């Protein structure tokens, strides 16, 4: 959903696993919906880790652990690998996450998050492991993500890092504009390109 980004401050949900693929984020059997119903996808986020075969919540999964909450998901490296399904980004957004922090994202999923106004924040391995340790010690640990300044701060330690975000995308995120809005204004350029190629 299009929404403006500014400064986000929140507790975090830790998922200290590497190579979390989009089949785990949202299994294929939930891809049959023909609408962008974020609540449906959010309800099934991490479905098979979150619920057992009978649909009962698994107590050992972090989304079912009442100690953790907030709109920032913190995940191990190579988050979102595998399938290009944007439903994974819809599920993350639908659950209520606005930011995902990891040391490494798979390419397609990273774009999908950005296109759904979920911000992927790439931090150093060191920052990430310190953050995981901090959250484990104190689930009330808060993180601040300042989009205009492009900084992420662990408020428990004060440690801060700058994250990458190109100027174009930053403008889009802080003004709630998407790429299609931009492309629709480029028709003359597209037609000129096609003519030149002939």
């Amino acid at each position: 959903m299009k929404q403006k980004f500014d400064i986000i401050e929140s507790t975090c949900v830790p998922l200290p696993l590497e190579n979390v693929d989009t089949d785990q984020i949202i299994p294929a059997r939930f891809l049959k919906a023909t609408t962008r119903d974020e609540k449906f996808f959010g309800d099934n986020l991490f479905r098979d880790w979150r619920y057992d075969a009978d649909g009962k919540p698994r107590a050992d999964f972090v989304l079912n652990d009442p100690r953790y909450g907030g709109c920032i998901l913190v995940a191990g490296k190579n988050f979102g690998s595998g399938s290009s399904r944007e439903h994974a980004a819809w599920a993350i957004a639908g659950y209520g996450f606005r930011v995902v922090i990891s040391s490494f994202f798979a390419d397609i999923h990273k774009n999908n998050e950005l296109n759904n106004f979920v911000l992927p924040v790439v931090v150093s391995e060191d920052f990430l492991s310190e953050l995981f340790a901090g959250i484990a010690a104190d689930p009330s640990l808060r993180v601040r993500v300042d989009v205009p300044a492009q900084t992420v701060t662990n408020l428990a330690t004060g440690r801060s890092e700058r994250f990458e975000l190109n100027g174009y995308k930053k403008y889009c995120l802080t003004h709630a504009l998407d790429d299609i809005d931009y492309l629709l204004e480029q028709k003359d350029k597209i037609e000129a390109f096609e003519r030149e190629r002939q």
Partner: protein
Amino acid sequence: MNTLFDKIWDAHVVSLIEDGPTQLYIDRLYCHEVTSPQAFDGLRERGIRCLRPQQIFCMPDHNTPTHDQDKPIADPVSKAQVDALARNAAEFGLTHYGMMSPDNGIIHVVGPEKGLSLPGMTIVCGDSHTSTHGAVGAVAFGIGTSEVEMVLASQCILQQKPKSMSIRIEGALGPGVTAKDVALYLMMKLTTSGATGYFVEYRGSAVRALSMEGRLTLCNLSIEMGARGGFIAPDETTFAWLKGREYAPKGADWDKAVAAWRELRSGDDAVFDRELVFDAADIEPMITYGTNPGMGMPVTGSIPVDTAKKALDYMGFAAGEKLLGHPVDYVFLGACTNGRIEDFRAFASVVKGRRKAPGVTAWLVPGSWAVKRQIEAEGLDRVLAEAGFEVRQPGCSACLAMNDDKIPAGKYAVSTSNRNFEGRQGPGSRTLLASPLTAAAAAVTGKVSDPRMFLLSSTSISL
């Protein structure tokens, strides 16, 4: 600099956004039923049409059953999704190869097979295995649904230009070693994120020696190393394979096109951001033991001792264990990875004159109706039937189990598909990825087997 990737990419740049992505022109968009409905909704919400409908081709493949396709799909939710694609294609004036159309099949099998994917093109689809089309010498990559909407609306996409990687494989592949094994070997070496951020050009004598089917398999799996795409510069093998295909240029246009395509290669002075070289002789028939495609080993190998416990617990394996001789419940031949005619020839060459093992359920699913027709024209269906195997109707099938072809929880499947993620082939399913030869060896023995054991008596394999 001056790589083939640069040449194709740069020739499609419409504009560069300052401190932002590139506006890239897209020659071909493919749409399947799973990742497109919300994009069409977006067009309706914005009140716009497709800018270049003639460059867009649609076909259902993920939900299609592999039996009784002439009857309505039993699962109402699957049916609704397949019907939505037909409706959207009609509303927006797009070519649609519906279920039971003789042109239907898996999008990544049909596109190249009809000559819709051609050298030098930019090709996208809401599917990570779009990298497959790189085999014809195109820049092809998977995108999300919002990006599908971008292309529907503007025939363009906004993308950061990936870095370039050269993977050279030199020498000759050994007997029983296929393109699938090459890809599984590369994933084992690079891991599933080793090529993230890169576009890969596959080069070297072992790559040149691959047939088009083998090249399609290799490029298909580029995404499993994290690469955005992978491709192979077009050559005589490419031109011979494309000539005469429905959408390939004809007559004088063909000669002109081939002359232009011959220029599509990296310069001798090309500089890649990363270059890797492998020796084909080091590659053996491969199999995976874990829960991502990078967790692979030679079929005769032992599971590495440092394998993650979560993966071992899911698979029911122990570190250090050998998989040779491990019982197999299911065998799946098919998918956009290995659902082409050569894959069926390879499978048939192993099972010919043998019988399917009693405990094994085998699903043999061609990648398209054209592949199925070719199987029948070559009499492979009879060879397979005599060995106890049935050839089903085309679709993605058990690769991701969106139709009824689901591997039950706890069961072991040797699959020629592309992913062994937890639950990929059905909740609780345990997938061992391998080549069609290794899948066939498992199908006749009922256990993980070295396909080279079956090649001694065969002279007809040229993969």
